[in-house]
């Protein structure tokens, strides 16, 4: 599974970057600076999407006491935090030439920053508790409470008067951007998905091995590998 997703991620990444840099035209307002969109939007979408997935599995782990779902949630957090950081970083580098400022305390930016803190809080809390099962439960609670932030991020551009623009792409309306720009962006979104799946599965496997080290099957596996 992991090689398939890794391969798909690389192919889509190359295709997305090609479309983004060589096919998509120059924006009539923003010039070439808009090309940051090809990482900014996928990263921002992934940061929110991964949080929901993480909270979902953490919640399942909390409700049904299934260890694997909790481990999966733990594995998602660093990748989600990374995408949140990238969204904020590329946003700052985009904001400087377009808005004239790296950072502004408006609703969209602030709620995305809170998302980063939620990821960091989740990871720190789990790291601070020695017993992994208790860490899972404590983490699940912070993850579930934090879900409330996701709709706030998403609708922040409608609810408040923000410097950040509204959504250019929505399910119900035709997207307000050129087709090739949209294509490049969507390919990059799929690349991010494939990348996230590959990386998260890989991290999940490591976490399983770490946590289940006392069990017979890990010892068995080890025996096979060393012989």
């Amino acid at each position, binding site marked *: 599974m992991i090689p398939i997703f890794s391969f798909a991620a690389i192919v889509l990444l190359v295709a997305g970057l090609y479309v983004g840099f060589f096919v998509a035209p*120059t924006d009539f307002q923003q*010039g070439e600076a808009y090309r*940051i969109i090809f990482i900014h939007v996928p*990263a921002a979408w992934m940061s929110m999407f991964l949080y929901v997935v993480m909270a979902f599995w953490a919640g399942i782990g909390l409700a049904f006491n299934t260890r694997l779902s909790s481990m999966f949630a733990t594995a998602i957090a*660093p990748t989600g935090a990374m995408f949140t950081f990238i969204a904020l*970083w590329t946003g700052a580098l985009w904001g400087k030439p377009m808005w004239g400022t790296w950072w502004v305390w408006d609703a969209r930016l602030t709620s995305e920053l809170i998302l980063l803190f939620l990821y960091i809080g989740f990871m720190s809390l789990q790291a601070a508790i020695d017993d992994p099962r208790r860490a899972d439960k404590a983490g699940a609670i912070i993850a579930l409470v934090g879900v409330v932030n996701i709709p706030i991020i998403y609708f922040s551009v409608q609810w408040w008067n923000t410097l950040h623009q509204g959504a250019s792409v929505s399910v119900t309306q035709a997207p307000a951007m050129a087709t090739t720009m949209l294509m490049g962006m969507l390919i990059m979104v799929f690349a991010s998905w494939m990348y996230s799946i590959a*990386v998260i599965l*890989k991290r999940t496997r*490591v976490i399983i091995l770490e946590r289940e080290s006392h069990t017979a099957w890990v010892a068995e596996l080890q025996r096979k590998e060393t012989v």
Partner: protein
Amino acid sequence: MNWSSASEFFSMGGYGLYVWGSYIVTFICVIGEILLISNRRRTLEKRYSLIHDLNKKEMPNETTS
């Protein structure tokens, strides 16, 4: 094709710092994440084989399949 020369491509219409600053940092994050996970896995494998070696020494009669 948008670019007539390589230097034009790298300058990004004067926004090179912002565009490449975004792409390079993203690239570093992604590569860094992959390396961190591989490293974590390798450490784990090393530790396990160490434990296994110790077990072997303690139980010399154990048959390994």
